[in-house]
C-alpha cells in the first residue's frame, strides 16, 4: 500500500505541475490582447499602449510565466485584468454556489441511481427493468441545458413554484432563498448524472449476480438477498467507486453550462466570462482550482477503490 501511495502521490504532483504549464501555454495562444477589453470605442493608440504596460501583457512570455508560477506557490492567483479584484477571494466567494450545487446534485443522483440501477439488474425479468433502462438511455442523450430550459419553463414560468434563475444577494445568510434558487439547477445536473450512473450500477450489479461466488453462496442455503448483501455489494461497489469519482469531478466542472442557463454566480459563470474577456488571471485561477479538484478527487477515488478491494494492489504489484 505504501509503495502504491508514494507512486500515486508522485503522479498527482506531476500532474498538477504539468496541468499548470499546459494551462499557461494554452491561454497564451489566444489571439487578441486583454488590454482591449478595457478600452472603449474612441481610445487613442497612446491609451492602448498605456493599457498594455499597465497589465504587463507587453512583457515576454517566459517572464510572465515565472512571475505567475511564483505567485501560485505563495497562493496568490493574481488580480483580474478587468475588475482589478484579486482572483483567489473571488473564487472563494463563488464556491458557496458551485460546491453545494455539485454535492447536492451528486448525492441526489447517487440516491436515485444506486437503488434504481440495482433494481433494474436484480429484477431484470420484471416490466420495470426495461422501463428503467429506456429512461436511462434517454437521460444520457439529453443535453443538460435543454433539461434546464424545460424545467424553467415548466416549474418557474408556467407553475411559478421556483425561481427561474439567479442567486439571492444575501447568499446563504438567507438559507431558504438560497436553497430555493438551487433546486432546479440541482435537479437538472442530478437527472443527467443519474442516467449515466444507473447504467454503470446496473451492469456492475449484473456482473456480480452472474459471478461464481454468489451462486456458491446461494447453493449453500443463503437467500438471494442475503447473498447479495453479504457478498455482492462490496464487489459491485469497486467499479462504481471509480466511476463515481470521475462523475463527481465532471459535475464540478460540467456545471458550466447549467450555471449559465440558471444565471448562477458560480465558477462556471466566472470561467465563461473570463474566456470571453481574455482575462488570463481569472481563467488560469478557475481552471487551476478546477483541475486540482478533479485530480485530487481522482486520487482519493483510486485510494478508496484499493481500500475496499485490496486485491487490486496485489494485481498491480505482480
Amino acid at each position, binding site marked *: 500500500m505504501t509503495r502504491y501511495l508514494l507512486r500515486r502521490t508522485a503522479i498527482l504532483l506531476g500532474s498538477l505541475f504539468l496541468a499548470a504549464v499546459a494551462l499557461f501555454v494554452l491561454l497564451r495562444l489566444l489571439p487578441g490582447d486583454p488590454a482591449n477589453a478595457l478600452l472603449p470605442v*474612441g481610445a487613442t493608440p497612446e491609451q492602448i499602449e498605456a493599457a498594455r504596460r499597465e497589465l504587463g501583457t507587453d512583457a515576454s512570455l517566459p517572464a510572465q510565466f515565472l512571475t505567475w508560477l511564483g505567485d501560485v506557490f505563495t497562493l496568490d492567483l493574481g488580480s483580474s485584468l478587468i475588475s*482589478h479584484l484579486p482572483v483567489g477571494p473571488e473564487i472563494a466567494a463563488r464556491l458557496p454556489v458551485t460546491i453545494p450545487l455539485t454535492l447536492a446534485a451528486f448525492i441526489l443522483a447517487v440516491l436515485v441511481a444506486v437503488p434504481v440501477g440495482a433494481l433494474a439488474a436484480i429484477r431484470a425479468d420484471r416490466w420495470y427493468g426495461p422501463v428503467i433502462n429506456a429512461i436511462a438511455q434517454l437521460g444520457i442523450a439529453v443535453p443538460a441545458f435543454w433539461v434546464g430550459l424545460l424545467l424553467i419553463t415548466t416549474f418557474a414560468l408556467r407553475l411559478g413554484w421556483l425561481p427561474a434563475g439567479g442567486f439571492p444577494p444575501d447568499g446563504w445568510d438567507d438559507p431558504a432563498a438560497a436553497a430555493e434558487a438551487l433546486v432546479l439547477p440541482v435537479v437538472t445536473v442530478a437527472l443527467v448524472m443519474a442516467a449515466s450512473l444507473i447504467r454503470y450500477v446496473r451492469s456492475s450489479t449484473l456482473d456480480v449476480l452472474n459471478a461464481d461466488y454468489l451462486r456458491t453462496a446461494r447453493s449453500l442455503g443463503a437467500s438471494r438477498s442475503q447473498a447479495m448483501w453479504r457478498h455482492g455489494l462490496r464487489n459491485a461497489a469497486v467499479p462504481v467507486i471509480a466511476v463515481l469519482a470521475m462523475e463527481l469531478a465532471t459535475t464540478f466542472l460540467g456545471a458550466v453550462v447549467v450555471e449559465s442557463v440558471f444565471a448562477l454566480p458560480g465558477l462556471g459563470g466566472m470561467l465563461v466570462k473570463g474566456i470571453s474577456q481574455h482575462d488570463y488571471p481569472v481563467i488560469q485561477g478557475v481552471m487551476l482550482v478546477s483541475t486540482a479538484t478533479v485530480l485530487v478527487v481522482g486520487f482519493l477515488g483510486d485510494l478508496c477503490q484499493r481500500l475496499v478491494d485490496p486485491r487490486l494492489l496485489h494485481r498491480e504489484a505482480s
Partner: protein
Amino acid sequence: MKRLIASLAALALAGTLAACGGGDDDSTTGGGPAETIQIGSVYEPQNLDNTAGGGQGVTEALNGNVYEGLFKLTDAGEVEPLLAKDDKVSDDGLTYTITLQPDVKFHSGKALTSADVKESIERVTAANSKSARKSYFEVIKEIATPDDSTVVFTLKSRSISFVYNLSYIWVVNTAAGDLTTTADGTGPYRLGEWKRGSTLSLTRFDGYWGTPATNAGVVFHYFTDATALNNALLTNAVDVVTGEQSPDALAQFAGNDAYQVNNGQSTTKLLLAFNDKAAPFDKVAVRQAVSQAIDDKKLLTSIWGEYGTLIGSMVPPSDPWYEDLTAVNAYNIENAKALLAGAGFPNGFTFTLDTPSYDPHPTAATFIKSELAKVGITVNINTITADEWYTKVYQKRDFTATLQEHVNDRDVVWYGNPDFYWGYDNPKVTDLVNSAERAKTADEQTTLLKQANAIIADEAASDWLYLYPQIVVASSKLSGYPVNGLNAQFFAYGITKN
C-alpha cells in the same frame, strides 16, 4: 399548495446541503420609503471606474446615483447644473467660471472642494485614462481654483459642447483609494456590496446635500442573457429591468396589469459600418447600393417585432440636430442593381462581414446575407468576439464591413474624424463638424451639424440599420423610474414602490 411544495423542496435541499446560520426569511417587507428596489440588468460593470474601462454597466449603476458631475444630463435629455450652483461664460466663450454647491460631502465625510473637481477632470485627461471622452477635453488650456468653491476653466477655443461634455465627468474623491474596486462620490447613494457575477447594492446616503433618495437603497441583479432577465421579472425576482433585449417576452408583460411597459427614447444605433477607405466600399455608389438593397424595416421587425425606429443617419431623434432622413437611400432593390452596374459590379461581388458574436449581430448578419444575395452580392459572415472586434476592426482597420452597435448620443461628430475606424474622409464634413463645435450659439451648431448629417446620409458613409427601442419594464407597483436611459444611465433615486 405550490408555495408548500417549493418550501418543502427548498427545506429538503437546505437539509442536504448544510445547516447554515439563523433563518432570516423575512426578505419581503411592505411598501414605504424603507423599501429596497430590485433592478435587473444585463450590463454588469467590468470594474467600478468609468475612466478605467468600467463599461456601460458602471454608468448605469453609479452615474447620478453614487457619483455626480458638475452638470447632469436629465432623462429628458436636458443639461442641468448639479454640483455647479452657478456658471458664467465669458463673452468670447473661452472662460467658464463655476461656483460649487455649498456643504457637499463625499460619502467618506470629506467636504467637496474645487481641488476635487480639478483632480477629477485631470483623471480623465491623464495619460493612462481609458475614457472615450478623453479627446473631448483636449480643448482645456487651464483649470484654476481661486478658492475652495470656485473652478475656472480656460479653453483654447470655443467649445459649445463643453458644459454637455462636463456632464459625463464624475467628481470623485481621488484620495479614496483604487476607484476600480471602491467608490467615494457625492451622490444620493453610497456603494454597498458588489458580488461579481451576481449583484451590486447601493444604500441611501444620509448625509446627502440634495433631496434624499425616495427608497432605502437599490440592488442591481446581473444576468448574462435576456431570457434569464425576463424570467426574473416574470417570477418577481426583480421589480424593474433597465432595458429589454428582445421583444419576445413583451407580449406577456404588455397584456398583464401587474407590469408597466415603457417605450422610451434610445440613442443606440445598429450600424453596418463600411471601411470607407477600402475597395469596394470606397465607392459612394457601392455603399448607396448596399444601403438600398437592405430592407431595414423587415430587419427591424425580425429582431424587434413592432418596436424600434428606423433612422436614415447617425442622429437619433433625441439629438437637437435630428432630421428624418429615412427617405435617403431608402429600400429600392432595382435602383441598387443599377447603382452596382454603374459602379462596375453588374454581377455583384463578395465581401466578408465581421460580425460580433453576441446578439443581435449574428441575426442581422444572416438577414443581410440573404438580402444582398438578391442583388448578386455574396456575404461571408465572420463571427468574432468583442475583443477581436476591437483588435481587428477598431485598431488595425483590417476589415471590409462590420456590424456594431453605437450607444452614445451626439456621436455623429465621429464622421468628422477621418482617423476613426470607418475611415470616412470628407473635408467638407470635417469642416462642418469642427465649425459646429466652435459655434457661438446652439442654433448655429444645430444648423451646421444638420448639414453634415445630410451629406453623410446621402453618401451612405455607413448603413444605419435601425435605432434600438429603449424598453423599461417594471412592476406596476413601481413609480419614479427613468424610461429613456440616455447614454445608458439609470437614475434610481426617485423610484418608489407601493
